[in-house]
């Protein structure tokens, strides 16, 4: 079994109704994602998942020096950021890619699949 991060990338700043356009579209996406999550758990692939607040709520901390330096904002100033992610535990990349396709459809976003080097 291999652990993969499936991360969803989207606009750094959220509009009203997330980035879904309308209240109905947002609710549909939430429902589809919820159903996808339930299936992940039922299939035994679920490790963890979560959605993130917008990039403007992020804080960067550099603790490598003598005193930690705290800076407002995401680490990289880009137009697109990770909006949410799953951690899955599946037999191989083919299974991960199938799940990513379903995840992408459910959450209405592109999904990056990346293997973990290890999980603590």
């Amino acid at each position, binding site marked *: 079994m291999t652990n993969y991060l499936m991360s969803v990338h989207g606009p750094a700043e959220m509009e009203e109704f997330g980035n879904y356009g309308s209240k109905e579209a947002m609710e549909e996406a939430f429902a589809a994602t919820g159903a996808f999550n339930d299936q992940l758990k039922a299939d035994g692939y679920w490790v963890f998942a979560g959605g993130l607040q917008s990039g403007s709520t992020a804080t960067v901390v550099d603790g490598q020096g003598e005193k930690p330096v705290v800076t407002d904002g995401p680490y990289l100033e880009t137009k697109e950021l990770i909006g949410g992610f799953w951690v899955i535990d599946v037999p*191989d990349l083919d299974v991960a*890619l199938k799940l990513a396709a379903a995840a992408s459809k459910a959450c209405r976003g592109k999904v990056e699949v990346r293997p973990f080097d290890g999980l603590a």
Partner: protein
Amino acid sequence: MQTGTAAVERVFREEYGRLIASLVRRFGDIDIAEEAAGEALVTALEKWPTSGVPPNPGGWLTTTAANRAIDRIRREKLRDSKHQAALMTHDDTPHEPTGPVQDDRLRLLFTCCHPALAPEARIALTLRLLGGLTVPEIAQAFLVPETTMGQRITRAKKKIAAANVPYRVPEAEDLPERLGGVLTVLFLVFNEGYLASGDGDPVRVELTGEAIRLVRILRQLLPDEPEVLGLLAMLLLTDARREARVRQGQLVPLTEQDRAGWDRALITEGHQLVRQCLGINRPGRYQILAAINAVHTDAPSADDVDWSQVVALYGQLARLDDSPIVALNRAVAIAELDGPGVALALVDRLPLAGYHAWHATRADLLRRLGRTAEAKTAYDEALAATENSAERAYLARKRGELV
């Protein structure tokens, strides 16, 4: 019996894909498989010249390489459970394939052509692991520096290991699409050989030959897949014209080729395959391309080509594949049926300004329409868009004939 180094290397090359594939299955690691195969070759080069080639050279190489791999794993005390498990297992799988879908090479082919790998890496990896070509050979064939090709292959192998790309023939529901990816890779290998993109040899037989060899293996493994038969037929019917296609360093267009110089044996085999496809009656892209090639190779002379059938087949292909390249080829056939004016109107609409064949086609149609000045410009643009020496020589001659 005396066996020269060249003979040993030939056997090794023949057996390489099977050898690597069975080692990858057993040890689950491409690097270990390649290294062990290399060591088995060294041993064979030492022993075979005096003892002769063993009766089952593939089995001999597999056993020798597997022993080397186990030695290496022991030596390096690799603690990975996968390697330990491999050590414990006695491999009693016969060397010969046990069934079509069980063949190790087929699994490895699907791994090499996995959609998660970059397209150029898929081609390189397929040639390296299944074709047994060396990194310098592949680098030379694709005209990139050896270090670049080495990095490309290393990176792909690393991704296969780290991302756990499976060594497996896809399940039935995914097979058609994944098989499409494999056929694309083999088709591209052939194409690069048949009209090489660089300024070196215009035809690279090591690539055309390797592509045909790999498609033949694929056909043995999946004997009932009509698209595999179609691709094989298409490659054979195209390769049959190879000798007649370049004369004194110049590309000779299909209609001007000396048909006596075509390889009749390949044409016969290709036609048989096309008939087999028609019997299966599940048409697809490569089968249609094969059928088009069959029409051309069926005609005793260029004047006898049944262009209406060629146009109809391209129409059928265009319904499956709406790419402008198909539309361009269809237009070339339409020029023979309805005249160059009709064809030019179709060609001019296509967004192919970066493609040498588009310029070359326009140049030819403009020439036939007597629009000499425009034809000259189009020949110049075609010349600027290709480095293939035979094609350049042909285009330069045609341009020079315009007055």
